[in-house]
């Protein structure tokens, strides 16, 4: 594995630790952290900050029966929670979003495929499959866009992104990512708005493809 060179900015890691990052981005951040030591350490530093605040916050007495209630619950069987671990190129949080299944690829034409992990009115997170040498369909995004490479690599005006690298683009960035020649590039893309693919699919058809 080549070294990761594109990381998550500190303000986004802090927001993730605090839980204020919208769900779709949180999937991308948790996935990158699963692959990246540097960002994991940074995240743990934010958690230490949170812990220090917790330690020094003003305490409020709890109800008298609370401790006894809790101690009585310790032996109760816990509902087993599914643990999703890494599967091939997919880090645990992606496998969790797929609920342990493989991606359900849908063709977007020209060899490009997508598998939507989740979307709602606040945004979406999806897997994209781009054949080597092919451009990611010309798209705009309304706000922040995070793209994490899981296989292959792509390049755009800002640089080259290999496995584990994450590109964080704001609305000002007009970019044309192109999958590097070779293996197809598979990436995880999170946005706060449905991606608008401009050239590939006529706008009229977009609801059909849910893009």
């Amino acid at each position, binding site marked *: 594995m080549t070294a990761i060179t594109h990381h998550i900015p500190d303000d986004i890691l802090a927001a993730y630790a605090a839980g204020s990052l919208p769900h779709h981005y949180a999937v991308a951040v948790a996935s990158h952290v699963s692959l990246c030591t540097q960002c994991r350490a940074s995240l743990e530093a934010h958690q230490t900050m949170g812990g220090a605040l917790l330690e020094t916050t*003003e305490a409020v007495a709890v109800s008298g029966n609370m401790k006894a209630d809790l101690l009585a619950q310790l032996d109760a069987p816990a509902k087993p929670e599914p643990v999703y671990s890494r599967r091939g190129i997919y880090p645990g949080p992606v496998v969790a979003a797929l609920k342990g299944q493989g991606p359900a690829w849908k063709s977007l034409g020209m060899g490009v495929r997508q598998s939507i992990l989740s979307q709602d009115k606040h945004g979406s997170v999806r897997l994209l499959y781009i054949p080597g040498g092919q451009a990611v369909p010309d798209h705009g995004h309304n706000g922040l866009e995070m793209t994490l490479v899981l296989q292959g690599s792509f390049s755009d005006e800002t640089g080259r992104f290999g496995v584990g690298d994450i590109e964080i683009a704001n609305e000002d960035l007009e970019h044309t990512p192109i999958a590097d020649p070779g293996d197809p590039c598979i990436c995880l893309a999170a946005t706060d708005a449905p991606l608008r693919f401009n050239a590939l699919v006529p706008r009229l058809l977009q609801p059909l493809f849910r893009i």
Partner: protein
Amino acid sequence: MSHNKSEISEQTVLMIAVRDNQDREAFGALFDHFAPRLKGFIMRTGCSAPQAEEIVQDVMLTVWRKASMFDPHRAQVSAWIYQIARNRHIDIVRKESRPVPEELAEDPGAEPDASQILAVEQEAGKLKAALSSLRPEQRDMIEKAYLGELTHQEISDQTGLPLGTIKSRIRLGLERLRHELKGLRE
């Protein structure tokens, strides 16, 4: 255990006892320390007292059940509980499951490294000292950020927020983690 417990903070010793021996008395002591702080912390987000207690109950139960994941070489007890509290708070209030990174399990049977545990605690101690030197409005802002009350945009717009400066003091954890993962991946 080979390390000198007298030098390691009480909370860490208690949490290790919960993790390794399911020690209820130790858990009770952790409850006495953390439950009122958690309640105060959660109520600062505008939760009512009963709802805050419901979350505290859930957090402490999770601490008991996930004790095996506690690794004092990387996290202070308070940092570990902070993250559990944020996760459970979100899961309960938003009724959605928060995406979390893959866990890094400690090597089973690995001997505790007292010097590393102490280093983590010293770092956190420095952090607490730095926090206590802040002006009240600065501390307030940081608390809001770490309670999930600010968007990431608002966090990055807070240029007066000494967040990066404070956080950059925690370097040792980073070094340790690099070292640990190098061993795992190579």
